[in-house]
Every structure is written in structure tokens, then in C-alpha cells.
């Protein structure tokens, strides 16, 4: 009459005014059975599984982010440590250089002092030597000059100055006068 289904004969024929709002008991039983089976498999087994998987995924992602952050913090710490160490090393080097410079300066000053002292000593020694030599020369000369002068004087004046003590006194006086004159002249 109409529709393939009807011609196949699956629909009931000429049902008297069926009320579509009245439920079929057998269908209710099948319906609740089918739904409870679905509820069991999905609600009891499968939904909890996917919820767990989603949670684990969240954890994994959060964990990954956390681990990355930790690694970055660790790297930062190491970098800071290296920088601190580097700064310390630089400071240490500067300190050592400064110390060396000071020590160098000190050594130079000491050496200079020593050299000056040595030079002074040498000069002093030389002066003393010169003084001693002069004194010696003077003493020798004094004796010789005295003798020569007396001899000369004796010859010049013809006078015998045999009296030793008088002669010595005269010569010494003369020499002292000479010395005084020389000192006054100097």
C-alpha cells in the first residue's frame, strides 16, 4: 500500500487507534535492560578509565612543565655560582697583583736604601782613608818639612841650631802658624 516496510509486512495491520503515550511493558524492560548494560560498561568501566587517563595526562603535562622549570632554575643557579666564582677569582687576581706591586715597590725601596747606605759607607770609608792618608802624609811631611826647613834655615842664617829642644820649639811654632794660616785661608 505504501512504504517499503509496509509492503514487507513488518508493521502491524489496522491496529485500532493505538495510543502512542501508553508504554509497552516489554519495551520498557528491554529499554531499561539495554540502558543498564550501557551504564555498566560506560559508567563502571570506561568513563572512569578515560577520566584517569585525562588526569594522568594533565599530571604528565604539568609534571613536564615543572621539570623544565626546575632544570631552568638549576641552570640559573649554576650560572650564578660560576659568575660568583669568576668575580671572586678576578678579585683575588687583582688582590695578588696589588700585593705583588706593593712588594715590588717595597723591595725596590729597600734595595735603594741598601745601595744608598752602601754608597754612603763606601764614601765614608773613602773619606776616612783619605783623611788617614792625608794625616800620614802630613805627619811624614811635617817631619821632613821640619828637617828640610831647619836645614834650609841653618844654611840660610848660618846659625847652628844644635840645641835640639829650642830647634823643635821653633819649628813647631812655625808649622802651627802655617797651619793656622792655611785654615784661615780655607
Amino acid at each position, binding site marked *: 500500500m*505504501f512504504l517499503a516496510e509496509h509492503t514487507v509486512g513488518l508493521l502491524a495491520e489496522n*491496529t485500532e487507534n493505538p495510543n502512542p503515550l501508553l*508504554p509497552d511493558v516489554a519495551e520498557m524492560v528491554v*529499554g531499561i535492560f539495554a*540502558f543498564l548494560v*550501557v551504564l555498566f560498561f560506560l559508567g563502571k568501566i*570506561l568513563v572512569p*578509565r578515560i577520566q584517569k587517563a585525562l588526569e594522568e595526562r594533565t599530571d604528565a603535562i604539568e609534571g613536564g612543565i615543572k621539570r623544565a622549570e626546575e632544570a631552568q632554575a638549576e641552570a640559573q643557579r649554576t650560572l650564578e655560582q660560576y659568575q660568583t666564582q669568576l668575580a671572586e677569582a678576578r678579585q683575588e687576581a687583582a688582590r695578588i697583583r696589588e700585593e705583588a706591586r706593593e712588594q715590588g715597590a717595597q723591595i725596590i725601596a729597600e734595595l735603594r736604601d741598601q745601595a744608598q747606605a752602601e754608597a754612603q759607607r763606601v764614601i765614608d770609608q773613602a773619606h776616612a782613608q783619605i783623611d788617614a792618608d792625608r794625616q800620614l802624609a802630613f805627619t811624614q811631611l811635617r817631619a821632613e818639612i821640619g828637617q828640610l826647613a831647619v836645614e834650609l834655615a841653618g844654611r840660610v842664617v848660618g846659625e847652628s841650631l844644635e840645641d835640639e829642644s829650642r830647634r823643635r820649639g821653633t819649628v813647631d811654632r812655625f808649622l802651627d802658624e802655617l797651619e793656622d794660616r792655611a785654615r784661615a785661608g780655607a
Partner: protein
Amino acid sequence: MSAPHVLAKDFEAPGLWLFQWKPLFHIGPVAVAKPMVLSLLVMVIVVAFFWAAFAKPKIVPRGVQNLGEVAYIFVRDEMGRPFLGKDAEKWMRLLVPLFFFVWIGNLMSVIPFAQFPVNSRIAFPMVLAVLVYVTFWVVGVKNQGFFGLLKNATMPPDLPVALYFIVIPIEFVSTFFIRPFTHAVRLFANMFAGHILIALFATVGFHFLWEKVTPLGFGVGVLGVVLTIAMTAFELFIQAVQAYVFTLLAAFYISAGLHADH
């Protein structure tokens, strides 16, 4: 007689008997007809799909698990969370089976050879609505107490005293009697009407292009075929919307049981 009357002389529009099926076979006293078989088929399809998707879920999803997750997250975010909020996660165990059992049941309307929405037989939406209604009562009494539930459901706070004389009976009847009825009937009636519409246009096409081809009726028959296709597309949309509404309302009723929402 006018042209439409001449045309439609032998045409018989599908009626209520469109939903009355002959028993295919009997198991003891139970006559098994097509809607029951389809209902069991829906059961198998839903369980099989989610078994394939979630039986061994991976942290990094592959293949059908991706699709399953989209389905799960859609139900959770669009139907669970709007009313249940933080409780949604726990109630997904009911809402996911509910949505897919209803939706695939509706989808049977357009699957070749099935071509019948399971939920256009009132028995199927009714048992689901009753199940949700019982859940509402159990959750409500557990969380608010019997009288607490009655009071919270029927007495919205901060109303003038006089109004309570009107509001209490209305809210009482609405919440405890009309709700489960409308919950089931909304789904049933949509699927029922949708099936009649598709059947009507299909019958028009079949009648005027096959059973009784006339020059005048040819255009009507073509129109019937075109509208059958259009209505099928529209029904695809309605089927999903009704499954969505049914599940959303279930979430809303459960949330009303969990806490006073006024």
C-alpha cells in the same frame, strides 16, 4: 472536484499505526518487535564504540580514543558542567551513557534499514526519565533530607507570604509530577513527529512517482522526495538537539537534588 482532491484520491497519509510493529519472533510470551531489536543494537553500538575508544586509554591518544575523548569532553563541558560544576566529573558516569544511548537511538531514524527512532516509542524515553527522576529523589533526600528537598523545591526564598499560597502548589506539581513526564514526552514527541514527517514526504514521493504516476502528480512526487531529503537532514539536527536537551535536563534535575538552587 478541485485538483488536489483528484490527486489525493487514493493517497493514504501515514498515521499512528506507523509506530505499531508486528512481532518479529517470540521469546516465551514476549513478542520481540523492531524497536526492541533496535534498542539492543544501540546498546551494542554504544558499548562497542566506547570499548574501542577507552578500554586501554593512552596518555597520548591514538585513533578512536581521540574521537571518544571529543565525545566525552563535549558531554562534560556542554551538559555536565553548566549545572553540576565541580560535581560534573562524578556524574559523567551517568551523563555519558545517557547522552549516547539517547542520541544513537534517535539516529536509528536515518540509518538505512533501521529507519526508526527508538525513542519514538514512549517506553524507552520513559524508563530513562524515571531513572533520572529516581536519581533526583535519592540524591535530593541524601543531600537535603526529605523535608529539606520538599521545602527547597517548592519554596523559593524572599517571596511575599501571600504568594507562597500560589507558588507552593505550582512548584510542587511542576517539580515532582510534571518534570519526569515532560522529560520523557519532549524526547518522545520530537522523535515521533520527526518520523511521521519523513514518512509522510517519503510516502508522497513513493505514491506519486511509483504507485500512481500522473502528469499532475509528478511535480508533487519530486517535491516529496526533495522534502524527504531536507527533513532527514533537519532530523539529524533535531536528534542531536533532543539528546542534548534530555541529558542537560538530567544534569539539571540531579543538580536540583544535590543542592537548593534557588
